[in-house]
């Protein structure tokens, strides 16, 4: 068998392909993005970036009911967006297997929270599988399709960042073709009118009972006997850490954490002296172990937030903590917007104005930090506009500060549109600025409805944001180039005075995909007064040395923004 080094994301893609998956839909989100990027390179699978996760899951339900094995992929918070169809999908069931991948982000490497999506299984009544490395990621997705079809139910495959973005060795197999899709109408199963849905709910509970019997027997859950002094129940990457820390202990490694294999756990607990649950973030397994009336060590010692590491487990179990302390007082190296990033100009234009600004999810969330300090919030996808709307409705007559929302183009398509419609319909004085950098920047440049290209590389209609916003009922729609800072600032000022909903499309390609607009700039040390005004732009290519501004020529892309704001004309 061929062996390859695959990340968990790549292994999920490989597994879906080997399982004969024909349809896959996702919205990009770290750490899940690479699954569809990888799957799109295989033949025989239709892959798309849907405009959001709800759309992706509903489309996958459609493909499944049409008889094809299908896949919907999202990051953890994406499943909140898709939660509505998720709960119904459990009632309806499947025809072709339906697998939903959620990539959770403990430690919040790139997310606004660290929710534990294993709980979605419990609440939506669908099975949850948690792989512990890339080989399992591939094996489990194939198992998930079989379970999905055997029990007529969608299956949730839960990854975490450490599984999604770690690479380990995977054995490669061929694709097994599945029966070609064919659609059959099944009214009582697929139309969730109350009368039918009541039947389906009862049916779902019966399916869960059958799954309960399955989870007690499946090799997805396995016991590895070692010393019976300590018995550890664990799942996902926590298993790998625990194996490292307790090489001799006994393990009950759960691959299927819901339905919970209660009998198996009882048996295991009965044969070890001390029982411990080692899991990341929430006590999902622990709660179910405790519900069996067993005494167990878990979150009473392990942290409830952040990622686990072997060292954290060691410390929690009272093994000598290491004296390997990090050096203190080193300057941090926080993520920064890129040299020449168009958001820099926009944020500069927004600085020091008397406004409340709703922010959103994307690279531009960094505008909340110094030196820009240009955003007040970051809540979830699309909340910039709706936040500003709510603020406007209660402060309209009291607070002189204007209300602005800053949202990226991809985020606007994802869930800004409905917020904008709400602004128009309920008439608030919100200025929406679409930071249109022509791509999905933060996750690594995926296409979206504005770019004119699909995930599979086909040309398609490129939505014109200006026409679109006008069609939504916004009369004031203005396009600006954020590289022209004064003009951008003047436009913002003008629109703030008209006291009507308006949209500014701040349009310039992401600095990482556009060609360099000019030769690197230089600071004329004679003319530079050392006033530091240019540093307020926050361009990483701009620095300060020997009381003068200094431009790092290898980093500068020559956009000219800094030259525009230097009061002395020292940047050439």
């Amino acid at each position, binding site marked *: 068998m061929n062996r390859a080094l695959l990340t968990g994301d790549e292994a999920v893609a490989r597994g879906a392909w080997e399982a004969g998956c024909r349809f896959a839909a996702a919205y990009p989100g770290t750490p899940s993005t690479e699954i569809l990027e990888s799957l799109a390179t295989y033949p025989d699978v239709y892959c798309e970036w849907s405009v959001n996760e709800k759309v992706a899951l509903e489309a996958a339900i459609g493909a499944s009911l049409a008889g094809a094995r299908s896949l919907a992929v999202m990051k953890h918070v994406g499943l909140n967006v898709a939660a509505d169809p998720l709960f119904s999908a459990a009632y309806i069931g499947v025809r072709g297997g339906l697998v939903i991948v959620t990539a959770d982000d403990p430690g919040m490497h790139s997310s606004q929270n660290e929710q534990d999506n294993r709980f979605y299984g419990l609440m939506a009544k669908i099975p949850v599988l948690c792989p512990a490395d890339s080989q399992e990621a591939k094996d489990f997705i194939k198992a998930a399709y079989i379970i999905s079809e055997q029990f007529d139910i969608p299956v949730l495959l839960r990854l975490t960042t450490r599984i999604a973005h770690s690479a*380990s060795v995977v054995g490669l197999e061929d694709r097994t073709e599945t029966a070609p899709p064919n659609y059959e109408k099944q009214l009582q199963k697929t139309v969730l009118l109350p009368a039918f849905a009541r039947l389906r709910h009862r049916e779902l509970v019966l399916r869960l009972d059958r799954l309960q019997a399955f989870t007690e027997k499946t090799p997805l859950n396995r016991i590895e006997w070692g010393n019976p002094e300590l018995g550890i129940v664990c799942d996902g990457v926590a298993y790998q850490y625990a194996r490292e820390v307790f090489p001799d202990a006994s393990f009950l490694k759960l691959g299927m954490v819901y339905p919970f294999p209660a009998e198996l756990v009882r048996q295991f607990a009965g044969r070890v002296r001390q029982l411990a649950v080692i899991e990341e973030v929430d006590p999902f397994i622990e709660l179910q172990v405790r519900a069996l009336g067993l005494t167990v060590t878990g979150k009473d010692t392990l942290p409830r937030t952040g990622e686990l590491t072997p060292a954290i487990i060691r410390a929690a179990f009272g093994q000598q903590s290491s004296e390997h302390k990090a050096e203190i007082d080193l300057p941090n190296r926080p993520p920064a917007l890129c040299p020449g990033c168009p958001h820099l100009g926009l944020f500069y234009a927004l600085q020091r104005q008397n406004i409340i600004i709703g922010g959103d999810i994307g690279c531009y*969330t960094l505008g909340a930090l110094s030196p820009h300090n240009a955003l007040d919030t970051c809540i979830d996808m699309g909340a910039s506009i709706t936040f500003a709307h709510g603020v406007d409705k209660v402060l309209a007559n009291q607070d002189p500060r204007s209300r602005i929302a800053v949202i990226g183009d991809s985020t606007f398509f994802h869930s800004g549109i409905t917020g904008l419609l709400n602004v128009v319909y309920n008439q608030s004085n919100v200025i929406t600025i679409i930071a249109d950098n022509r791509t999905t920047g933060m996750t690594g440049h995926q296409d979206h409805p504005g770019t004119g290209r699909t995930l599979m590389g086909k040309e398609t209609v490129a939505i014109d944001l200006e026409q679109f916003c006008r069609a939504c009922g916004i009369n004031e729609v203005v396009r600006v180039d954020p590289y022209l800072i004064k003009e951008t600032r003047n436009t913002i000022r003008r629109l703030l005075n008209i006291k009507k909903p308006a949209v500014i499309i701040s349009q310039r390609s992401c600095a990482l995909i556009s060609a360099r607009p000019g030769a690197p700039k230089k600071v004329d040390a004679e003319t530079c007064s050392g006033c530091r005004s240019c540093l307020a732009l926050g361009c990483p290519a701009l620095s300060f040395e020997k009381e003068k501004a200094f431009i790092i020529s290898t980093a500068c892309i020559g956009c000219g923004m800094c030259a525009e704001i230097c009061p002395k004309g020292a940047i050439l």
Partner: protein
Amino acid sequence: MNLLVCGVGGQGVLLFSDILAQLALTAGLDVKKSEVHGMAQRGGSVTSHIRWGKKIHSPLIEEGTADIIVAFELLEAVRYLHFLAPAGWLIYDPLTIAPLPVQLGLVEQIAPQKLVKRIQNRIQKSLSVRAFDTACTLGNPRVQNTVMLGAVSRLLEFPDDLYCQTIKQLVKPQFVEANILAFRRGQELNPISR
């Protein structure tokens, strides 16, 4: 073998670790590799943990257990020193890239000599390799990572031709030659071999 690579986004840390991990796989070993990079594409701190051997469980290296740390930048070298095992090697590029808060004058820069002192006070086996400068003299700052790979290769157990084979496998065809040249130059920069 526990090998930790660190640097700044954009320096090629990820390709460096891809090459090493693939190499260990080709050599028939179990391999795990795990990366941490922040939300923006560039300018943030980036690390990659690579572990290989007969059977590897955790994809993360524990503090105090790295056999080798490869640092592409001086400040990052100091930041991850506590991962090094007492008998481990630190191979670092003395290059400094000021973090944004330093550039903005919000935080004071620590002088490079002081950083080197901290390294020398804390660990016994360190080697400074001017990989970035060497890459520049080769006319291509972007091969800093393969220069580093050459320097590190002298501490590892893999045969030379395996490196070249893996570079060919993972680097775009038009850059293979430049990278192999950089690799060779890197080997010359390391006077110590195992």
